[in-house]
Each structure stands twice: as C-alpha cells, then as structure tokens.
C-alpha cells in the first residue's frame, strides 16, 4: 500500500494546514485533502460535454453497503446526496441529479451485471462505481474481481457514460481481518488500463484519520461521525468530479 510517502505528506500538510484547520473545525468539518490524493490525469469528457453543452449532469452511484447510511435520515446524509448538494452549489445553472443503485452484499461481478439496465433506466453521464469490500470479505478471487470491473467499465463506456471508480473505506479496526490490498491493486490496474479516474477513498479516509480530522478507530461515535464523514466524502467527490471534468476552464485558471 502507499503508506510511507503519503504519511510524509500527511505530516507535512498537517503542519502547514493546522492553523486554518483548527479555526473552522468547531462549526464544520474542513476535511482538507492534499491535492495528490484528489487529482489525477484522467478526464471525464462525457460529463464535461453534458455540463457545458446540455447544462445538466446525471450521476449514478453504484455500490454496496458503504454507500448508504442506515436510519430515517440516512439517505440525505449519505455521500451520494452530499455529492449532489455540493455539485448543485458549485455548478449553478446546471441540472444536477444523483441517483443511487446500492445493493448491499453484492460482489463487483453482480453489480457489473446490472450496468446495462442502469444505462437504459437512468441514462447517466457519469457512473461512480464503489466496490471492493464485499469481494474482500467474501475472499473472492482478485482476478475475477478485476475481470468484473473491466467488464462493467466496458459496458458503461460503450453505453456512453463516463466512469469513476471508488475503492474501499479505510476501516482501522478491521484492517487485520479484511485483506483489501489485492482488490485495491486490481482496481488501480483497471483504472490505469481504461484511463479513468480513481477516487481513492481509502487513502483519503486514512489521511483524515492520521491528520486528526476524524477518529476512525472509535467504537462509539454513533451516527454523527458517520454523517460527517459522508458529508466530507461527498464534498471531496464533487471536487474530484469537477476537476476531472473541468467544465469551466476559464474559471479554473
């Protein structure tokens, strides 16, 4: 995994960012993320066209249990809804819609089967595909996992949708028990081969844990911690999508 240098940066940026970090932490989580964790070289061309030409952006989040929160106020607090809110704020005048297709306990292979139907039902410009934890818990073959991702991404590309892959949550308590490594690596390979952006949720959450933003070791922070983490993830993902789709180059400079 990418511990050493990431951690160097974590320490460095902690030193640099801490005065700003503490000032606002009281009212709202700042959830700072160093740029190297958020920005890549791969672009989202279809999403860009949808935003600039059609002034609308439909995103489908496909995933498993970690893409939802339980409880009556779970859905509006989970990261897909937070992503929608953040994008609406950042892209005024664009009709942003985020739909979710979450199936707990389904492997990547199962989710890949549903991609064709998703394209027809929702006609998304962009699909955010979260996976890996279920496959790792069930110890499915990493090669099969990679093949499933590959197949799903191809289906989505053929159907005219951009894809962002999202890896697992960083879960320090279960780190010894769930071997995420081979699955995270497989996802990285697929992202490289298809030149699609990978939202490194694992590294981002680990960064937050190491920088003191969140105490993810905790057993009993209850639903509040989960909501705050999802809010930060949704905002980070919106930044990530906007950067990869760079809908307004003039503003970016």
């Amino acid at each position: 995994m990418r511990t050493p240098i990431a951690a160097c940066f974590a320490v460095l940026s902690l030193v640099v960012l801490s005065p700003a970090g503490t000032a606002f932490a009281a009212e709202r989580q700042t959830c700072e993320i160093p740029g190297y964790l958020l920005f890549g070289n791969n672009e989202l061309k279809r999403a860009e066209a949808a935003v600039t030409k059609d002034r609308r952006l439909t995103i489908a989040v496909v995933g498993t249990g970690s893409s939802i929160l339980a409880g009556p106020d779970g859905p509006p607090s989970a990261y897909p809804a937070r992503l929608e809110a953040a994008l609406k704020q950042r892209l005024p005048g664009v009709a942003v819609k985020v739909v979710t297709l979450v199936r707990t306990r389904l492997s990547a292979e199962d989710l890949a089967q549903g991609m064709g139907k998703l394209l027809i039902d929702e006609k998304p410009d962009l699909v955010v595909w979260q996976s890996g934890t279920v496959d790792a818990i069930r110890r499915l073959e990493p090669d099969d996992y990679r093949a499933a991702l590959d197949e799903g991404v191809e289906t989505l590309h053929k159907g005219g949708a951009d894809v962002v892959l999202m890896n697992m949550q960083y879960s320090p308590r279960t780190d010894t028990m769930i071997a995420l490594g081979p699955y995270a690596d497989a996802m990285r390979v697929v992202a490289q081969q298809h030149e699609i952006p990978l939202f490194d949720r694992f590294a981002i959450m680990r960064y937050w844990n190491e920088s003191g933003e969140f105490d993810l070791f905790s057993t009993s922070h209850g639903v509040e911690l989960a909501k705050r983490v999802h809010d930060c993830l949704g905002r980070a993902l919106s930044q990530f999508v906007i950067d990869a789709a760079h809908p307004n180059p003039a503003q970016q400079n």
Partner: protein
Amino acid sequence: MPQVPLRPSSIWAIPVPHERPPDMHAPVAPVVTSGRDLRLDLFRGIALWLIFLDHIPSNLVAWVTIRNYGFSDATEIFVFVSGYTAAFVYGKEMSERGFVVAGARILKRTWQIYVAHVFLFAIYLAEISYVATSFENPLYAEEMNILDFLKQPDVTIIQALLLKFKPSNMDVLPLYIILLLLFPPTLWLLLFRSTLALGASVLLYVLTWEFNWNMPSYPSGHWYFNPFAWQLLFVFGAWCALGGAQRLSGVLQSRITLALAVAYLAFAFVITLTWYLPGMSQYIPPRLEEVIYPIDKVNLDVLRFAHFLALAVVTMWFVPRDWPPLKTWWAWPPIICGQHSLEIFCLGVFLSFAAHFAMVEISGAFWVQFVASALGIVIMTAAAAMITWYKRLEGRSPGSRPRKTPDADLAGGEA
C-alpha cells in the same frame, strides 16, 4: 556426483566436504559439513521483524520495510533462507543417515508448523470475534459482515484445518507446510541430481504460469502464496546451500553482475516511487507499464524474483561471510531471532494482532505505533534469547543423551 571445488574467496561460501572415505553408508554428496553462515540467520531475523511490522495495519513504522522500496519484500528473503537452511540441516542428515531418517525428521517439523498454524488460527478467531462484536460504528456497517464466515462453523473450521480457509496474514505457514511436506523427495533429487532438481523446479514454475495452476481456497479463489510458483525460491535456496552458490560464485563476484543488480534495484525503486506519488506515473512510458504490470505476488512474479536476486547479489557483495559486525552485540538480536524462526514467526503474527489491538483500544497515534513496534521487536528478541537459553539448558541437563547430529532446531533449518 562431481565434487565442486571450493574457492576460498567465494562469497556465499559454504565449506564443501573434502574427500569422503569410500566406506560411508550414505552416498557421497556435496553437502555442508559444518560452519554456520551467520548472515543467513541475520537476514532471516531481519525478515521476521519486517514481516511483523508489515502485518500491523496502518503502521507508520512499516515505512522502513523493504517492500516500500522495490518489488520484493521480506517474504522472499524468508522463503529463500528457509530453503537454504532446510537443505543445510537436512541435507547433511540425509547424506549421513539416509532418506528415511531425514525424511522422518522433515515430516516431524512439518507437523510442528501445522500445529503452529492451527494455534494462530485460534488466536485469530478470538480476535476477530471480539472486534466484530464490540464494534458499533454505523460508518462501518458493511465491514461488520466479516463474521459471516462463522455462520457455518462446521464448514469453515474444517476448511481451515484443511488449509483451504486462511485468514488474512496467515498465508505463509501453509506455504511452508506444503513446501516441507514435499521436501524429502526434493532434497533427495537435489543431493544426487542437483541440476535436474533445479531444472524441474524452474519447469514447474513456468508451467504454473502457462497453465495458471494453483491450490484451491475456501470459499473461493486460490492460495495467496501459490506453492507451485513459490517453490522456485525455496528450491533455489536449497540448491545454493548444496553447492549451487559455489557454482555461481564466478558470476556473483563479477562486477558486471553487481552493476546489473544495482541498476535493476534503482529501476525497481523508481517504479515503486510512482505507486506513492501518482503524479510521477506519467513519466513511465505506457508500453513499459503494459509489460511490467500487474506485478503478481501470488505467483512470485519474475520481476519480484529478479529483485530478490539483485538484493542478494548486492548484499553478498557488501556483507562477506566473515563480516566483523556479525560477531558484535548489535547483530545478536536479529541473529538469534533468525535461529528460531518458527517460534519467532508465530510470535510475530500474534504480536502484530496484539499491536493492532493496542492501537484500536488505546490510540492510533504515532507514538503508540512506534512503541508497539519497538516493544514487539524487543519481545521477539527476548523470546528468542529465552529459547536459546532453554535449549542450552536442556542440552546440558543430566541424563540427556549427547547429540551427534547438529541441533536442527537451533540451525533453524526448518522453515
């Protein structure tokens, strides 16, 4: 079997027996007689420490481990040295006392490792059950499903005893069990047809890659350390111990080999750097990426094997057999850990669970990680010192029979 001439200056040198009297019962073979290479213990001890550090999740101290600076990691060192020492100890036994006696001792050792594996599995079950039931963070509702496998204990526990169900971080011992189980015939072939044995090992490795052979796991998938592929490193280590190192000494001492090894290590370092600094990966030509990726740990990717060889060449160049620091006090802790590798390996796995537990229950702060890592190494060293002391005590105690054969446990030849 032709005697391999001993070159006094050769690195990796193991004394080769001089002319053996022709009336030996056992067939003559180029096996080691005496003289333990402390470098093997040193590097195996260090490998055990690195495996311990790597097994503690989210451990910042694990930056120092070699997997972050190249393709191979401590596993390669461990497998190679274990093959080397197994051949060192049991090779002598087999040529002096015959196939049956040596084979029986190898199988006894295999059984010990199996028992150690089952013991670790019990500890793992205790830890996972505790963590999963004391875990009430809604953020991690999905990760809670880790206990799903215990819904069918009748199946899972039997699969674990059959070495098909292996919790994470518990893949190394099953690999050893298989390698040692098949070691008696392998060793026999290595002793009497060493080139053929090494050739067969390479062939098995190539066929494994060609036909995707592996052992099945439960509930699905395959072994994380594919024994059909990893046997190559083990057999190569054994081959080196039985005279192969002498045969290679010309190559190993050449400056060209050293230059190639250094160049390859530098290349691997740059590639590894791009994993941590994604911005750098744009400087790697896509065609090169296509060739090298994925670097397959399961099947001991040839890039990993080459990286280990390069590391070994460079190490042997700068650390000669009679390297003075080997006799100093600071080399003593890793050396004694390397001499009791099975005990210290198991202790290391247990301690990595314990260190993780401490990080979860106390704090994940860096000082906790540092203290847990350092304390773990101290405990491993203390345990190794205690085992050394205990064995010496046993050997001296009245009534104990004098041992003619070298103490296999001390020699650490067993995995």
